[in-house]
């Protein structure tokens, strides 16, 4: 197994992210079983258009190289040609299964740059929707990840239940997927009549459903065989590779931006950060399951304590942040989602850089799959929970 623990030692840089040197004729190529094959970009288990070049010895993976960019739309260039407000809907299209989180990060970053703050009520609405979105994102991950490994039923369960979240989104802002739910300075829409009831109903509806998913998988022998000790990444390696989110936490690092550097209204709520021990695929599964339950706790507190008041802060009609730079990041379902914005004082951003969690996490694929079998590559891609829209932007 590749991922040896070397605390404080950083020679991971020499191991990580192999470069297969495809052009150079390989001597051993002719007299051994080594084989270079191509997985994707059209492959159902790559969750979009990811191409992985695998160097195999029989069925054992010797190294990988990711070829990405098939979904590149130049979001950062687009931003430079749009106003701050016009760019807001574009961020939804990066991690399109967690559009609300993307919007939250962007709006908060611009607010910070303008030195304004969203009112308390807006922050609570933001937290409720973002946490709902986290559950939806984890449900989609669970369904597809289990499907990749061969368990089909969870997919139907999770999509059935995710539908309830999308219905709340649709009633709130009219869109299910690319929600564009927030505005710079707060929320555009007041909650609809019955919003709180819908959310509370959802909480009582989904809690037993999560137990149901667990009943299908947590002690399922096939699931255990396919996920335990597969794709192990140590905490030291994960930190060196900049891996964040549930993947980092499953390796035993108790770090969540909602606690470490609270944003929105997260400092008002009581919740825990679940962590794993070994950093294998099974731990990551357990961490995400526990995170869904923690999200329910947060939503419950938020919906019960939602304050009255305005939903928009004092923001001018024309968004024109002063000259300066800001980096703001949030804990998206996949990890640290950051926005680095440079303003030149005009209505258009001089530069927006998105720090996408999926892109950075995908880099860890190589050291996670070395020495495993081809079938495990599928499991590891699933467990990393990448969205190619965000990897490629």
């Amino acid at each position, binding site marked *: 197994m590749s991922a040896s623990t070397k605390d404080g030692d950083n020679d991971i*840089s020499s191991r990580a992210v192999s470069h297969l040197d495809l052009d150079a004729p390989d001597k051993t190529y002719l007299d051994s079983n080594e084989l270079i094959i191509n997985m994707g970009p059209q492959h159902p288990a790559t969750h979009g258009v990811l191409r992985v070049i695998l160097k195999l010895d029989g069925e054992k993976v010797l190294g990988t190289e990711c070829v990405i960019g098939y979904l590149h739309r130049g979001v950062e260039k687009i931003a430079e*040609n749009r106003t701050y407000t016009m760019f807001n809907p574009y961020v939804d299209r990066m991690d399109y299964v967690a559009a609300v989180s993307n919007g939250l990060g962007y709006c908060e970053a611009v607010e910070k740059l303008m*030195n304004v703050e969203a009112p308390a009520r807006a922050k609570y609405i933001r937290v409720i929707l973002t946490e709902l979105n986290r559950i939806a994102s984890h449900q989609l991950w669970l369904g597809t990840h289990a499907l990749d490994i061969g368990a089909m039923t969870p997919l139907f369960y999770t999509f059935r239940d995710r539908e309830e979240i999308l219905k709340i989104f649709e009633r709130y802002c009219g869109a299910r997927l690319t929600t564009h739910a927030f505005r710079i300075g707060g929320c555009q829409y007041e909650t609809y009549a019955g919003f709180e009831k819908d959310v509370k109903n959802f909480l009582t509806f989904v809690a037993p459903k999560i137990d149901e998913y667990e009943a299908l998988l947590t002690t399922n022998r096939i699931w255990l065989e396919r996920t335990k000790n597969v794709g192990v990444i140590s905490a030291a390696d994960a930190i060196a590779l900049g891996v964040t989110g549930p993947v980092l936490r499953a390796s035993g690092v108790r770090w969540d931006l909602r606690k470490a550097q609270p944003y929105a209204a997260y400092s008002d709520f009581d919740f825990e950060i679940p962590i794993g021990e070994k950093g294998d695929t099974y731990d990551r599964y357990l961490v995400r399951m526990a995170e869904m339950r923690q999200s329910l706790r947060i939503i419950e507190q938020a919906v019960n304590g939602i304050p009255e008041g305005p939903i928009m802060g004092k923001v001018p009609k024309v968004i024109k942040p002063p000259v300066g730079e*800001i*980096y703001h990041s949030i804990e998206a379902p996949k990890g640290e989602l*950051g926005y680095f914005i440079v303003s030149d*004082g005009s209505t258009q951003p001089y530069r927006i850089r998105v720090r996408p969690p999926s892109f950075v996490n995908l880099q860890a694929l190589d050291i996670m799959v070395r020495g495993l079998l081809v079938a495990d590559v599928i499991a590891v891609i699933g467990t990393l929970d990448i969205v190619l829209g965000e990897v490629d932007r």
Partner: protein
Amino acid sequence: MPEDVKTPAPPPPPDGEKNPVATRSPEAAPVVAEAKAAVPVKPVPPAKPAAPAKPAGPVPLPWTSPLIEKYKNQYGSGLDAFTYLGQNYLTVDRALIPNILRLLRDEDQFDYCVDLTAVHYPKREAQFDIIWILYSFARNERVRVKTQIADGATIPSSVSIWATANWLEREVYDMFGISFEGHPDLKRILLPDGWKGHPLRKDYGILQQDKEWVQINLGIESGQ
């Protein structure tokens, strides 16, 4: 045409002009004075008649901390520290970059390289800002390290310091054409290998790209 609207924008963020001043004068006080004097010229009071005399945006202030003291003692004028809207950043001479980055990780526990990116200022002599965003789990603290390099100049790779810099540097190379010395495999990452130019440079127009790549290379009729 959106490019044209964008280019005559006001000068780049304050530290662009401030840096030369900072390196020239050894005392700290004039730097602050300069910074404060420079800013009120730029903000745009005439453009906003609705808002009653909005205070001109916050100004980067000098950032002092034991960490900075230590670095300043060691490296003197090659380095300056500021804080803006509660976020700390260092501006560092290009020559000091590898040392500073390594010190930050080895001695000051900035063990997580959050992001690495660049910004293009075509009108400046040193056209590019390179920015490392670092985080320390032990201190729960972020810091940005900035340096300026000229077009065509290279910068030492930080892959040996943080393995995560590998793809991040490739992306900066892809988007800006900045080369990182000692990078294990510097090649394009998001764009196809045959792509011409580096799109996040300010002189790279989106219409020109549409013509060259979409119409000529791919042979697709474009509606742009």
